[in-house]
C-alpha cells in the first residue's frame, strides 16, 4: 500500500469530524496568528495548523478509501436543509494537495517573508495566508453551491491583500492585485448569479440534489444561462483562456510565498469546482454540456496552451514567464477534462497534481534566489547555478518536470494526457500537446541554460545559497516530482479514483 498508512491512524473521534477539521484548523489558526505577539510565533502557529490540517486530510483520505463518499452534515441538519460537506475521492485528492501545499508554504514562509514583507506585518500576513488555505480547502470539500461561493470569497479576499503586499519588491503588484480583485469579484458574482438561476429552477443549493432535480427539467433557458454564468465566473477564477488577464501580473508581483501557493492551488480549486458542476450537477448527456466541453472548453484550452506558451517564451521576467506557463498548463489540464472520459479526466487530475508540485517548486526556487539577490529578469540569473547550486538544481528538476523530461512527474502527466487523447480519437489534441510541450521546452531551456551555462554579468550582485528553512520544502517538492515520476502509484491511484468519482454521477 502507500507510505501514508501510518498516518491514517488518527483517533476515531477526530476522523469522524475530519472534513470540517481540515477546514477549521487553518481558520482558527488564522485568528490565533492575528492575535499572536510576533512574527516568530505566528509562523509557528501557521506551520502547526497547516500540519494538523494535512494530517486530518490524510486521515480523511484513508476514510474515503475505506468508506467511499462521506457526507458530513454541518449543524446536524440533513441536506438539502443544512449545508453538507461532500468528500469523495476527487475532493479528498484536492484537499490533500491544498493542505500539503499549505504546509510547504508555511514552512517556507519562515525565511521567505523576511526579505519581502515588513516585520510588523508578519502576523497579519500569516493570518491572511491561513485564511486563504482554509478558503481553498472549504471550496473543494463543500457540497453546497452557495457555500462554495463563501469559501471562494474567503480565499479571494485574503489573496488580493496578500498579492498587494508584494508592492515592497515591485510596485506593479498593486495594480495587478486590483485587476485580480476586479476579475475575481466579477467572476464570483457571475457565479452567484448562475447559482441563483439554478436555484430558481431547482429550489435547492445542494449540488448533488441540484443534479438530481436538473435531470428532470430538460431544456430550460434559465438552466442554460445559469450554467453559462457559472462557467464564465469560475473560468475567470481559473484563468481560463480569454479571462486570464489578471494572472501574470498577480503571480509575478505577489510575494513569493503567495505565488507559490497560488500557482499550486488557486486555479486548480476553481477548475475543480467547474468540473464538479460540469460532470456532477449538469446532466452530461444534454447537448448543452457536450457542446460546452467539445465546442468551447477544448478549443479555448488548446488556444491557451499554445498562445500563452509563446507569450512565456517572449517574457523578459522569469516570474512572468512562469505565470504565462501556468495559464498554458491550465490549458493542458482542461484539455484532459474536456475529453470527459475516465482516462482523460484521470490524466487531467494527475497533471494537475504534477503541475502543482513543479510550479510551486519553481516559484520557491525563484524566491530562494530573491532572498540574496534582487533578480527579476532572465539575464539576472546568469551563472547562478554555480553560486547557489542547491536551489538551482531544485529549480532545474522542477523545470524538467515542466518540460516533460522522462523520469519526472510532468512527463508521466503529459504521456497520460496524450494516451487519453488518442484513446478518445482526438488526434488534434495530440498535436496541441506536442506543440505545447515543445514550446515549454524552449522557455524552460532558456532559463536553465542561462542559469548554468551563462557567465554571470560582471559587477552584478552575487547570489548566496538559501537557508535550510527554504531549501527543505523546496527539495521536498522537487523530490516528489521525481519520485512520482518514477513510482506514480499514489498520485495515479488518487487520480483514477478521483476521475471515477467525478464521472460516476454522470449517466
Amino acid at each position, binding site marked *: 500500500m502507500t507510505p501514508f498508512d501510518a498516518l491514517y491512524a488518527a483517533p476515531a473521534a477526530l476522523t469522524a*469530524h475530519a472534513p*470540517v477539521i481540515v477546514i*477549521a484548523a487553518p*481558520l*482558527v489558526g*488564522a*485568528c*490565533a496568528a*492575528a*492575535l499572536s505577539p510576533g512574527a516568530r510565533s505566528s509562523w509557528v502557529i501557521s506551520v502547526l495548523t497547516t500540519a494538523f490540517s494535512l494530517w486530518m486530510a490524510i486521515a480523511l483520505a484513508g476514510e474515503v478509501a475505506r468508506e467511499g463518499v462521506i457526507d*458530513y*452534515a*454541518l*449543524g*446536524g*441538519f440533513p441536506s*438539502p*436543509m*443544512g*449545508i453538507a460537506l461532500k468528500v469523495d475521492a476527487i475532493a479528498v485528492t484536492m484537499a490533500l494537495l491544498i493542505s500539503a501545499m499549505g504546509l510547504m508554504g508555511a514552512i517556507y514562509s519562515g525565511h521567505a517573508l523576511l526579505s519581502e514583507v*515588513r516585520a*510588523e*506585518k508578519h502576523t*497579519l*500576513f500569516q*493570518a*491572511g495566508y491561513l*485564511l486563504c488555505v*482554509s*478558503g481553498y480547502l*472549504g471550496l473543494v470539500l463543500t457540497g*453546497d453551491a*452557495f*457555500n462554495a461561493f*463563501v*469559501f471562494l*470569497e*474567503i480565499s479571494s*479576499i*485574503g489573496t*488580493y*491583500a*496578500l498579492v*498587494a*503586499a508584494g508592492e515592497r519588491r515591485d510596485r506593479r503588484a498593486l495594480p495587478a492585485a486590483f485587476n485580480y480583485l476586479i476579475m475575481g469579484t466579477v467572476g464570483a458574482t457571475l457565479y452567484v448569479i448562475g447559482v441563483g*438561476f439554478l*436555484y*430558481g*429552477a*431547482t*429550489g*435547492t*443549493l445542494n449540488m448533488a440534489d441540484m443534479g438530481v*432535480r436538473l435531470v428532470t427539467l430538460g431544456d*430550460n*433557458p*434559465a*438552466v*442554460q*444561462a445559469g450554467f453559462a454564468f457559472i462557467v464564465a465566473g469560475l473560468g475567470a477564477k481559473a484563468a481560463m483562456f480569454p479571462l486570464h488577464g489578471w494572472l501574470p501580473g498577480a503571480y509575478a508581483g505577489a510575494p513569493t510565498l503567495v505565488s507559490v501557493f497560488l500557482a499550486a492551488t488557486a486555479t486548480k480549486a476553481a477548475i475543480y469546482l467547474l468540473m464538479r458542476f460540469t460532470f456532477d450537477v449538469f446532466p452530461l448527456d444534454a447537448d448543452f454540456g457536450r457542446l460546452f466541453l467539445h465546442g468551447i472548453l477544448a478549443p479555448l484550452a488548446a488556444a491557451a496552451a499554445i498562445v500563452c506558451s509563446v507569450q512565456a517564451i517572449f517574457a523578459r521576467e522569469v516570474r512572468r514567464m512562469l505565470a504565462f506557463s501556468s495559464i498554458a498548463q491550465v490549458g493542458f489540464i482542461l484539455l484532459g477534462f474536456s475529453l470527459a472520459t475516465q482516462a482523460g479526466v484521470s490524466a487531467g487530475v494527475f497533471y494537475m497534481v504534477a503541475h502543482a508540485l513543479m510550479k510551486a517548486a519553481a516559484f520557491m526556487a525563484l524566491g530562494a534566489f530573491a532572498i540574496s539577490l534582487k533578480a527579476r529578469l532572465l539575464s539576472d540569473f546568469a551563472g547562478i547555478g554555480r553560486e547557489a547550486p542547491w536551489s538551482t538544481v531544485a529549480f532545474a528538476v522542477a523545470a524538467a518536470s515542466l518540460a516533460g523530461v522522462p523520469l519526472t512527474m510532468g512527463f508521466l502527466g503529459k504521456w497520460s494526457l496524450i494516451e487519453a487523447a488518442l484513446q478518445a480519437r482526438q488526434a488534434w489534441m495530440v498535436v496541441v500537446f506536442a506543440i505545447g510541450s515543445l514550446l515549454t521546452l524552449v522557455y524552460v531551456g532558456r532559463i536553465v541554460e542561462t542559469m548554468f551555462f551563462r557567465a554571470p554579468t560582471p559587477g552584478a550582485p552575487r547570489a548566496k545559497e538559501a537557508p535550510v528553512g527554504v531549501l527543505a520544502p523546496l527539495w521536498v517538492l522537487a523530490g516528489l516530482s521525481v519520485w512520482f515520476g518514477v513510482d506514480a502509484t499514489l498520485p495515479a491511484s488518487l487520480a483514477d479514483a478521483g476521475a471515477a468519482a467525478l464521472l460516476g454521477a454522470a449517466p
Partner: protein
Amino acid sequence: MTGFAVEMSAALNVVLLLMLVAIGLAVAHTRNLLTAILLMSVYSLVSAAWLMVMDAADVAFTEAVVGAGASTIILLGAILLTRGATARVDWRAMVAPALLAVITGGLLIYASLGLPEFGDPSSPANAYVGRMYLERTGEEVGPHNVVTAVLASYRGFDTLGETVVIFAAGLGVALMLGFGPRATLAPAPEKMGDHHVVLRVAAKMLIPLITLYAFYVQFHGDLGAGGAFQAGVILAVAVILYGLVFGLRETIAAVPVKAARSVAALGVMLYAGIGVICMVNGGAFLDYDYLFSPQVEAMIPANLLGDPHEEHHWGQHFGILFVELGVLLTVSSTIVTIFYGFAGRSIDAEEAKR
C-alpha cells in the same frame, strides 16, 4: 382577483425598481466621483425600501447600514486619499463594454423568461427547501424570525464563512493601510476655531442611544428584523460618528487599534469555538443541540423567555445567541479597523515623503 395591499405592493415594486434603474444609469453617466458615491448611497436607500416591500426585512436592514452607511464612508475615505476626478474616457473605449453589456443583457433577458413568474408561490425556489424552513423552524430551531434561524443554525456554516470574509477584509485593509503615516493624528490647527457646537452636542446625545440601539438589534434578532451583522455595523457607526466629530486621536485613545484587531479575531474564534464545543459534546460541527450537556440544560429556568410551557430548544437558543455575539464582535471591530485604515492615512504625509 387580488386585494388592495397586494396591488399596492406590486406597484411599489415597479416604481422602486424603476428608480433603481434610473439611479444606476445616472451613476454610469456621471464623471464626478463624489456624485457617483452620493447616488450609490441613494441607490442603497431605495434598494432597502424595495427590499422591505419584497418582505426581506433583514436584508433591507443590512443594505441600509452597510450600503448607505459603511460603504459610503469607506468610499469617501478612499476618494479623500486618491484625490481626483475621472478622466474623460474616449467613446471608442466604451464601445466594446457597451456591446458586451447589451448582448449579454439581451441573452439574459431571454434566459430569464425560463424562470418562474414573479411572486409564484409554487415555483421550485419557493416551494421546496425555502418552504421546508418555514415549516420546520418552529419545532427544530425556535426563533420567530425564520431568517435568523436559517442564518445562524441551518446555514450557520455559511455565516461562519461570512464572518471570516469580513475578518479577512479587516486584515487586508490593516495590512495595506494600517501601517502608514498617521500624520492626521495631530490635533486640528487652532485657526479652525470651534464652529461645530451643534454637531458636537447632537453626536454626544446620539452616541449612547446608537450603541443602545445596536444592542437592541443584536438581542432581538430572533423576534424581528435585524441581527448581529446589522448590530455590528451600527455599533461601528457609533464609533465612526465619534471619530468624525471628536477626531481619530480621541477615538483611538478610547478604542485602540490593536484592541479592534484582536477583538475581530476573537469573534471568529468564539463562533468557531461554539462549533467545536458541539463537536466535543458528540454532535456535528455547529450542531447546537449538543451545545449543553443535559445537566446544564436542566439548570436553565423554564420561564426564561416568558412562557414556561412553550417548548424550547435551549441548545439552539443559546447557540444562536453566542454565535451572534461572535459575529457582533468581529463585524463591529472590523468596520472600525477599516475606518481607522482609511481615516488614519494621510495623502499629504505620503506626498511629503517623496
